């Protein structure tokens, strides 16, 4: 029971169907004009980018599925993780040397790790790395981990920057690096994990998640789709927890030196940092 198999029964969308859906974007455009949001240009760019990115994704996935080689699947997975790491750092309003490789490493390790765990233990795909199963799961884990990592990273960077005096007052008392930064780390990890916790609370009551929608649309039994969705949610929660914790600890490591000194001189504040 894989998503791909289920989707094989889906009623296909023609280009005309898509064009009709694109009309809905005009609602956005109308809102932008009515309230003078100045979003017109960005809306056009965003719509075109979404179309282009998804078309490209379809092509790349088609190619990878046709190859059916473990190294190709691994290569695509790592590449997706690296891009997610880059995106997390790009969103942050502060930078530090080494942050990009750290975020990329955390993204790849946490998301590929969680996905591998799921594939090996829970999903009966043959072979276990089967791209039609592994790539969609990885994509969902990564997409959500990116959210958590990005929030955790921004909160950690801002926390060390703004809580400097408190952290240093504790260091001056002889507190260890871990103890002196306890509050900053707690807050950053919590901030990164709140969205997934909230969405687990809301799922099924307020929202029907995208994957389950897809499976139901494709004719899958709703109970089976629900089981699959829950499985994915757990995987996502695991990825978010590992990724967020990893990136927050990596940030602390980068901002402290070997004598436990908080080195804010390594921090670069971009416009937008308060």
């Amino acid at each position, binding site marked *: 029971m894989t998503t791909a198999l289920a989707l094989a029964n889906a009623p296909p969308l023609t280009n005309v169907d898509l064009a009709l859906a694109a009309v809905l974007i005009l609602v956005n455009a109308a809102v932008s004009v009515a309230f003078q949001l100045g979003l017109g240009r960005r809306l056009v760019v965003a719509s075109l980018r979404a179309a282009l990115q998804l078309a490209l994704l379809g092509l790349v996935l088609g190619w990878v599925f046709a190859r059916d080689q473990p190294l190709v699947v691994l290569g695509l997975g790592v590449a997706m993780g690296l891009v997610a790491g880059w995106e997390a750092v790009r969103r942050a309003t502060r930078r530090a040397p080494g942050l990009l490789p750290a975020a990329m490493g955390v993204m790849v390790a946490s998301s590929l790790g969680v996905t591998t765990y799921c594939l090996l233990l829970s999903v009966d795909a043959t072979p276990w790395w089967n791209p039609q199963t592994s790539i969609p799961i990885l994509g969902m884990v990564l997409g959500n981990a990116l959210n958590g990592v990005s929030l955790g990273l921004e909160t950690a960077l801002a926390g060390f920057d703004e809580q400097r*005096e*408190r952290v*240093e*007052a*504790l*260091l*001056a*008392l*002889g*507190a*260890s690096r871990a*103890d*002196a930064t306890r509050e900053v780390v707690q807050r950053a990890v919590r901030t990164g994990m709140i969205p997934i916790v909230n969405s687990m609370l809301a799922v099924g009551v307020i929202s029907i998640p995208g994957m389950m929608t897809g499976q139901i649309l494709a004719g899958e039994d709703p109970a089976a789709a629900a089981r699959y969705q829950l499985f994915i949610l757990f995987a996502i929660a695991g990825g978010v927890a590992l990724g967020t914790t990893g990136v927050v600890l990596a940030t602390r490591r980068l901002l402290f*030196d070997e*004598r*436990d*000194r*908080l080195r804010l001189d390594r921090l670069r504040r971009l416009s937008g940092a308060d």
Partner: protein
Amino acid sequence: MVLLEARGLVRKPVISDFDLTLDAGELVVLVGPSGSGKTLLLRALADLDPVDAGQRIFDGVACEDTDPQTWRRRVRYVHQRAPRLAATVYESLERVRSAVPAGTFAAHGADVPAGLDVGQRTADLSGGEAQKLALFIALRTGARVLLLDEPTSALDAASSAEAERAVRDYVDAGNAALWVSHDEQLAERFGARVRRLS
């Protein structure tokens, strides 16, 4: 007996070739115009900032040969603007207790500086009250050298005199302090040596 010694300390671009000895029982007043590096110097002595050259020695052992936590427990920097450690005065004291080795914080649960209340929210403390709390903590956590960054700048005259008495008692007990001040009479009142940064 020399407690703390600095030899040829360099912290670019402000501090170059700074020497100092602090004996047990000695208080030195550090004066100098704004931007002369007084705070930078204290931070470097407490090993909160790296130095570009020179040596910091406590009781004959170099800073680099001491683990950072031990060094900072002995040579303690006290911020001019006392930061909030926790939501209330009581929680702040508990936070200090959790940060230092068991039994080294010589203050009991209800023991707070005069004029402060254990349940008071730290966000509501005035600058002077926060300074009082910071000095109260610094004097009771077992440091041998206090690096005081204008510790009475927000205090009224009476509280200021009281703080000076407390520091004098601390120093007389065989400790040492380096006190950054704009008050030229402070050294006279203490009979202390003055070091000038230019």
